């Protein structure tokens, strides 16, 4: 009740509320945390790369990617072989080029 009736004294009290303020202190072991932060900042690019690569999630994704690329390459290889066979066969059919063996030359009457 008194507060609402006397805004001026409240303003003065608020403006003076920093009188006798004590210094705030950081939490204990500040230097340890500081050194840890400095160490992280100072790690070289290679060290950071090794840390990144050896993360389980990164390793698993990398292995999965390699397996996927292998499967993709194998699939394309099979498909390419199948296509080559078809082209070769149609070429042979067109020019009557059949596979001949030594037996065909030795027995021309057949």
């Amino acid at each position, binding site marked *: 009740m008194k507060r609402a009736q006397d*805004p001026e004294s*409240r*303003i003065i*009290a*608020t*403006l003076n*509320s*920093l009188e*006798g*303020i*004590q*210094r*705030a*202190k*950081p*939490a204990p072991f*500040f*230097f340890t*945390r*500081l050194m840890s*932060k*400095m160490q992280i*900042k100072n790690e070289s690019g290679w060290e950071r790369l090794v840390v990144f690569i050896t993360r389980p999630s990164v390793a698993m994704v990398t292995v999965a990617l390699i397996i996927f690329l292998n499967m993709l390459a194998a699939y394309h290889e099979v498909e390419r072989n199948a296509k080559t066979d078809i082209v070769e066969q149609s070429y042979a059919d067109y020019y009557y080029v059949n596979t001949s063996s030594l037996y065909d030359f030795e027995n021309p009457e057949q």
Partner: protein
Amino acid sequence: MNERNLVEKLKQGDEAAFKEIVDKWQDLVYNTAIAIVQNEQDAEDLAQEVFIQVYESIHQFKEQSKFSTWLYRITVSKGLDLLRKKKTRKRFAFMKSLFGSDEQIIKEPPDFFHPGIALDNKESGKVLFRAIASLPENQKIAFTLHKVEGLSHQEISEIMNTSVAAVESLVHRARANLRKILEEYYRHEP
């Protein structure tokens, strides 16, 4: 070891000297940082950044001023940078929200209670720090260094690279502005 010796040792890369510097001035840096950024976690990060800069750029300290003056300068500069970044992020989040982004607007920070204020002044201290946060940068720094760190106008003028008269004017205007803000606050307070 005195201040000059510590600085010389640090310039030679002596880590023990660095530890002594941190132990000796961590409260000064942290207290200044927390008064500027008004958040304990930000103040911790800021204090760490200040000492990292001290370690990395000690060779730039020419000993024309006191070491503590140099520390205050770095802390104030980094503190203001942090506040500007936070303000920019807040504006950006607000703009994104206007364009229908799902990202929420960054909420107002929770009330700040300075750990060094006596218990019976906690509430008015909270109101005062909120008012200080809305002051222009120069007034905020001059008033904070004067009232929270207890520095003289002469010391503040060295930190802010300005005249004593300018600091007196800044502190005076800060107080006048704070009064206006508080009048408004108490008029509309429920």
